């Protein structure tokens, strides 16, 4: 018997097993974005879907992030071919409507899609309460370090990225994040 050898083996194997066990508790797709805390990349993009109500815009107008200093901004990247986007659409539309009077602006950003397909989708889904923008050649998506759709970014009143959500977002999470961002005084942290 050579138990010393067995001991070597076990000491080599245990860390590997622990490591794999640790791996089981992690989601390989949940990649931490370096953006939160940093200034949100500015954009100037054309509106293709106007939205309704207070925050509605005219098709063809240019929306700029820098024009919304003082507002909390929610950016949602979506596409008509994206299956998961269907699950979050209702939540986004209704929360955007509810917070329109409280200094919160929502924008949809169409990812890798055509405006006509996007418009058809919006109609199909029963409308979208906030404007959606075109992102030609996905420049803005890359600026925001997009991994896929849907992804949702929360931007503070002073224009910093506060939080990024990967995958379909829920109404509860939207409300919770918005309330905490609105509770922060502008400029402070």
């Amino acid at each position: 018997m050579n138990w010393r050898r067995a001991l070597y083996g076990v000491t080599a194997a245990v860390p590997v097993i622990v490591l794999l066990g640790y791996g089981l508790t992690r989601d390989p797709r949940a990649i931490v974005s370096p953006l939160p805390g940093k200034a949100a990349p500015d954009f100037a993009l054309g509106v293709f879907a106007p939205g309704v109500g207070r925050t509605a815009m005219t098709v063809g107008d240019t929306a700029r992030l820098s024009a919304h200093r003082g507002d909390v901004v929610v950016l949602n990247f979506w596409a008509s071919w994206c299956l998961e986007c269907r699950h979050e659409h209702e939540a986004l539309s209704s929360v955007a409507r509810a917070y329109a009077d409280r200094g919160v602006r929502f924008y949809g950003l169409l990812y890798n899609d055509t405006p006509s397909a996007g418009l058809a989708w919006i109609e199909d889904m029963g409308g979208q309460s906030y404007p959606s923008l075109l992102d030609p050649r996905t420049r803005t998506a890359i600026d925001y370090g997009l991994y896929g759709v849907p992804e949702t970014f929360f931007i503070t009143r002073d224009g910093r990225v506060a939080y990024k959500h990967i995958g379909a977002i829920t109404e509860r999470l939207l409300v919770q994040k918005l309330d905490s961002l609105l509770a922060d005084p502008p400029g402070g942290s």
Partner: protein
Amino acid sequence: MTRLLGFNALVVALGAALYGSLALFVGARRQRAELIRSGRIAVYAVFGLATVSTLAMIYALVAHDFSVDYVARVGSRATPLFYTVISLWGALEGSILFWLWVLTMLGALVVYQNRERPGHLVDYTGGVMLLVTIFFLILLVGPANPFGLVSPVPPDGPGPNPLLQNHWLMGVHPPLLYLGYVGMTVPFAFAIGAVLSGEISEDGWIRLTRRWTLLAWMFLTAAIVAGMWWSYEVLGWGGYWAWDPVENASFLPWLTATAFLHSVMVQERRGLLKLWNLNLIVATFTLTILGTFLTRSGVLASVHAFTTGTIGWYFLAFIGVVLLAAFAVVAGNSDKLRPTGALDAAVSRESVFLLNNLFLTAFTITVLVGTLFPLVAEAVRGVKVSVGEPFFNRMTLPICAALLFLMGVGPALPWRRASREVLRRQLLPPAVAAGVALVASLLLGVRAPYALAAFAFGAFALTANVREFVDGAMARRRVHGESPAQAVARLVGANRRRYGGYIAHIGVLSLTLGVAASSTFRTEREATLRPGETMQVGDFAVRLDEVYLRNEPQRDVLAASVTVLRGGREIDRLEPRMNFYPTSDQPVPTPDVRSRLTGDLYLNLQAFARDGSTATIRAIEEPLVPWIWIGGFIVCLGALVSAAPNRRRVAVPVEARERAVAAAQPPARELEGVAS
């Protein structure tokens, strides 16, 4: 009905496997023939029950019985029959069922093949096979039960994962992979069986093991090459190997098994490396389970990974048990595995095998460390990092170059010792060939160091291996006056193991040539074309004729019809496509390839305009790609030749032969071969 049959067969099989393993272990320990007989019957019965369960699943798939959970998730009425059948391994539960079937089949084969063998090696081995079987049965009746009831029964299902129903190679790659992976259970079971039966210090078990390892290795090789081919044909980037975690997972046991197939010869001939070989067997088996874990637990993101559940924890526990058992076995028996021989000289074939094992082990460690490092980095630094192709190329290409070189040195050096004179005579022609290849590559404009190394060492190794055939055949012609073809055939037939090895080497060299040439001389262009427009890539002109949509029952196909021209003449028509499946928001690229022995023209449809006015096409000219697939085939052929018993052997019962050979020292085989 089918559902109950399939599930209950698994439950009964679990009972039979539990009983069988107990009966075999206790029967062998206490010398109880009755118990052993019943245990062996249990091995066959488990195979029978697994077959029933697998057939039930196939029937449910084909009959579109959507009351079966698995069918409801991977079946659809629109899927063609072929893809319906192979969706057996298209998702987690079915693939484990198929795995079980292969495992029980091999268990039954092992017991049947060795049923006359005296001693209890086979009983312990069968018992270990059943223990592994029990693990998979527990998965199947528990967390990975494919026979769950769906109520109410849906009218139709979503169909298999689009990536798995897009190419016929998905009907080939997984079964080969499972035969390779599961096949590596057999050597492991033999090793544990040999320890338990007390035969570990004899060499009989390792000889039985070698042939099984060789066959499993052959399937694993075929699976890896088929997987490369599938990537090439389906993923649309014109490459075949991306160092993806799951590719690495299949490559790791291949590396350790390759090391074993070489070092076992040192054990058989010189009585060295016994403990090392046991380690390699255990490592290979553990790595197959680790590979399965990585594929099925979702620990590492990968194109090929299945989605997950709690099953990862089961696998982890199993890996833990296997490792602990293995370490206990190795530690408990290291004294019985003392070297019984010696080396004559440092410069000899034995030493080359040692170096071969050194580099293959370093290769394994490099790939393992690189594959798992993202987890380590996340655990320690809390940051996700990537370890991909540039890392693996940087770290493993030097090892590949060393292995290529050794592949030429090994066959050239004699066993025992090599005098200066022999060295010069044996190594001079390969060295000359290497020099010629080096100069030729430089003249062709190759400057990348590893490409130069691949061509030079490749020529070196090829010459050394081909020379073995030429020299041997010429000697036979002198002695027996045979025709060249006859001489080569008899030469190989008389010593299949050795020449099978050289054939496998030649296959690896063909594969190396294909990889080196296709990555060095690759020409690539990407252009957005209107119908009628042409782009140039290498010698070819590619003209877009039309972009059109075609509806098929299970998918929509968007195709670009393309004419290939060379020197102004139309030589071919290709149709790269994108296939859209209803379950996926990403299209599955379906490149079209014009393949010739001299090289491929690879076209992929990258993007298109909605109205059919333009299509963006990536065109890649890659020389010598088919030699990769041909090389894989040659390697498998070599393994088959090597695994076949030598001819002209009087029919002696297996066990008598094993004993005789064990007593007479291993080289008896080679002696017979040359004498015939």
